[in-house]
């Protein structure tokens, strides 16, 4: 085993080895995470709604999503007749790949990150913007009016919500003075950002929910209006890829929120004496955030499209701008 | 506008002998009007001006020709007015859909189920049955019915 490892390192060089092994690890993580999150979502929804949720397959039904995954894989990949075949097939891949890349720069703990780029945050946001393109591709190529409407809505929504999202993290960047994820975490050694920039954290969470097309901002796939939005025509594993990407995106935005506002892998201030590794703290915080997002989803009705836009342009962006100016002043004053 | 006013308005349109008061407790209407096919528009205008709404349009099939029944009602107590139009077979009657929008669908339904044609109707298509149906199911010569009677067998002459 050790010899094989040495061979690999000799062959690829130490940097590349980490990336290759890391990507394999990320692939595994994405799958396991999606399986877990789907199960969690169903359980949370069920218990909020006084139901039980999956319970038959495995203890507490935890294997239910694996069974579902097997079902999806074994299903026929239907390509409807009048679709744009190339784009139609490309869209699920295009939505899934950027997700993998984003994981490369996320610091899971002090030592566990694949690549600590000095433009880490930029990479994540650059690639997460990519999923708009994939949705548009899928929606356009499907040649279905519902899909098209979903895709158009999605583009408008994502473009609009990028702005307050980025504005809200700027104040964090001003404080940490770096785009490097590990530096951002280190800058929160004394106090987590969420405690003194709660508004930025709130704006980030709201915009991130909108970015990942989660309720109450799920208008691109609003099931009661657009049947299934941009992925109406997809079936089998292609549909599963959209699904996978959605849940992985959730993990990414929650992980970024943890890194930016909740102190990353650091333990909560008053629990520092516990011998808990950073990875556990990180995952715990991330999944708590994800739980909140799910909780929100199963509570609220959906916004209308124009209200969503109004909310972004009339409330979120001015608020984010105002917040940025105020905090720029404060940080200047402290330093 | 009260029922008396409506009655007055209606007497300008149809003969006074064609307006019969009816007992609500006995048959659910307070006024019955027997109008000819060409009067129905005027009757509908009078009821509209009296702030009545169109409750429903019903077709009836008798051996001596179909009837179309209009029920008008107002948002006040006990004010249902029944308008009865006796038609000959294959006779059409004018639409009141320009007066009451509700009539668009009700007339389509009567056309669909009875084959009674409404002149100048903006959109006289089948509504409940598929577009390619070639029958009018509520006619008494269609399907299984218990009886096919003439109007005299059912209605006594109402005492004016």
């Amino acid at each position, binding site marked *: 085993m050790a010899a094989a490892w040495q061979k690999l390192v000799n062959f690829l060089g130490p940097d590349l080895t980490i990336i290759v092994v890391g990507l394999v690890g990320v692939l595994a993580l994405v799958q396991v995470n999606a399986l877990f999150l789907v199960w969690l979502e169903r359980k949370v*929804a069920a218990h*909020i*709604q*006084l*139901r039980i949720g999956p319970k038959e397959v495995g203890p507490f039904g935890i294997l239910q999503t694996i069974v579902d995954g097997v079902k999806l894989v074994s299903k026929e990949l239907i390509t409807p007749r009048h679709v744009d075949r190339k784009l139609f097939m490309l869209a699920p891949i295009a939505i899934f790949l950027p997700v993998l890349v984003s994981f490369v720069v996320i610091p899971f703990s002090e030592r566990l990150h694949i690549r600590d780029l000095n433009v880490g945050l930029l990479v994540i946001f650059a690639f997460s913007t990519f999923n708009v393109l994939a949705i548009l591709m899928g929606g356009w190529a499907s040649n279905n*009016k*519902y899909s098209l409407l979903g895709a158009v809505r999605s583009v408008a929504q994502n473009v609009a919500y990028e702005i307050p999202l980025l504005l809200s993290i700027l104040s964090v960047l001003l404080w940490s003075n770096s785009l490097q994820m590990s530096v951002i975490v280190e800058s929160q050694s004394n106090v987590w950002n969420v405690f003194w920039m709660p508004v930025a954290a709130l704006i980030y969470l709201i915009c991130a929910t909108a970015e990942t097309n989660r*309720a*109450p901002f*799920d*208008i691109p796939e*609003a099931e*009661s*209006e657009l*049947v299934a939005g941009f992925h109406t025509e997809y079936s089998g594993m292609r549909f599963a890829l959209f699904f996978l990407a959605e849940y992985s995106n959730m993990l990414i935005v929650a992980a970024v929120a943890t890194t930016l506002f909740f102190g990353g892998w650091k333990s909560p201030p008053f629990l520092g004496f516990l011998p808990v590794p950073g990875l556990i703290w990180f995952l715990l915080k991330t999944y708590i955030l994800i739980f909140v997002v799910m909780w929100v989803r*199963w*509570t*609220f*009705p*959906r*916004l*209308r*499209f124009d*209200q969503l836009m109004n909310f972004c342009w009339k409330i979120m962006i001015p608020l984010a701008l105002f917040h940025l100016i105020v905090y720029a002043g404060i940080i200047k004053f402290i330093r | 506008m009260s029922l008396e006013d409506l009655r007055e308005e209606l007497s300008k349109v149809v003969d006074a002998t064609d307006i019969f008061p009816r007992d*609500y407790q006995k*048959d*659910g209407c307070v006024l019955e009007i027997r109008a000819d096919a060409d009067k129905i528009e005027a009757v509908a205008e009078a009821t509209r001006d009296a*702030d009545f*709404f169109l*409750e*429903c349009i*019903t077709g*009836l099939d008798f051996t001596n020709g179909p009837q179309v*029944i209009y*029920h008008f009602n107002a*948002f*006040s*107590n*006990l004010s*249902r007015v029944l308008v009865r139009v006796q038609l000959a077979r294959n006779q059409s009657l004018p639409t009141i859909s320009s007066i*009451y*929008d*509700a009539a668009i*669908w009700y007339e389509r339904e009567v056309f669909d*189920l009875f084959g009674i044609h409404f002149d100048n109707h903006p959109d006289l298509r089948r*509504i*409940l*049955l598929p577009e390619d149906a070639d029958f009018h199911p*509520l006619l*008494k010569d*269609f*399907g*299984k*019915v*218990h*009886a096919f009677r003439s109007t005299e*067998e*059912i*209605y*006594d002459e109402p005492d004016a």
Partner: protein
Amino acid sequence: MTNQMLEPITEQTYYLNMGPQHPSTHGVLRLFLKLDGEYIVEADPIIGYGHRGHEKMAESHLYEQFLPNSSRMDYLSGLLFNHGYVAAVEKMAGIEVPPRAEYIRVICAELNRISSHLLWFGTYIMDLGGFTPFLYCFDDRENILDILDHVSGSRLTYSYCRFGGVAKDLDDEFISATRQFIERLRSRWDDYHNLVTKNVIFIHRAKDVGVINRELALRFGCTGPILRGAGVAYDIRKAEPYSVYPELDFEIPTGTAGDALDRYMVRLQEMEQSLRIVEQALDRLPDGPIKAAVPHKVRPPKGDYYFAVESARGALGFYIVSDGTSYPYRLKARVPSYGNLQVLTDVLPGTLVADTISILGSIDIVVPEVDR
């Protein structure tokens, strides 16, 4: 929505078939929409996918035999349709119903009205994207169904009212279960209001959406909560009193603007009023027989009769022409949803697709009732 939206900016309008199979058309309704972007230019509801010919069936059935059909028109308020049909035939044939039977009918009908409104409440919020209130409502509705199941033996298509009375007498268990249910539902209002009524997203989705004012309701013959939402206190239970409603004290809740929010509020308040009716009726429930002596085959005298009751969705009328035999010569059901649905052709143009769902949900149609 302003009318400037009605002017197509470009010629690039397109058609969208919403339904017959769509998550929020509540059955097999098809909306043929002409869209400009997301704005609706023209709407044409296409109905009839569930046409079963109840009116034709009536012509070859005995009056008694049509009884099960009546609750199958509107499966959500089956007892109200039952009541309407039975009361119409009783009025024609001059059958006196014992007071206890009348009270039992009112109690069950009002419970049925609550269950219908609860289901509407849940599905409406589900149309707007909130899934959870739907299941809370089903939890409560289940309770009503259990209660009605206890007395009538079925949960949806009750053929409970019979000519001259009802099929089965109430027992103490029913009465205590109903009183418990009243308590329970009253304790739920707070949760419903916190979860939905006060929710800012819901208010934005429902306010000023799909305004149906008095004039529009008059033109299209809309009745029920739609009309009351527009501020007209018109309720058949008051306007043409039937059964024992004149003896009971209840109010007609009304709205002001006639938008979806008003219709929502009217229905919520109606549930509370129905609870009051049930409470009073339980208190006053007289002893006595539950069924008058009626011949096996009812033979109403010649003539025609129109009888209206207030169903959960509006004025329901049965127009029956009798030729003196035990078969109806013609039976016409004036169903409330028919007029209520047609108003969509006027309300929808100029709104967004998302509003279409909100409006369609707020007028509360039951498609089998429209199709008959």
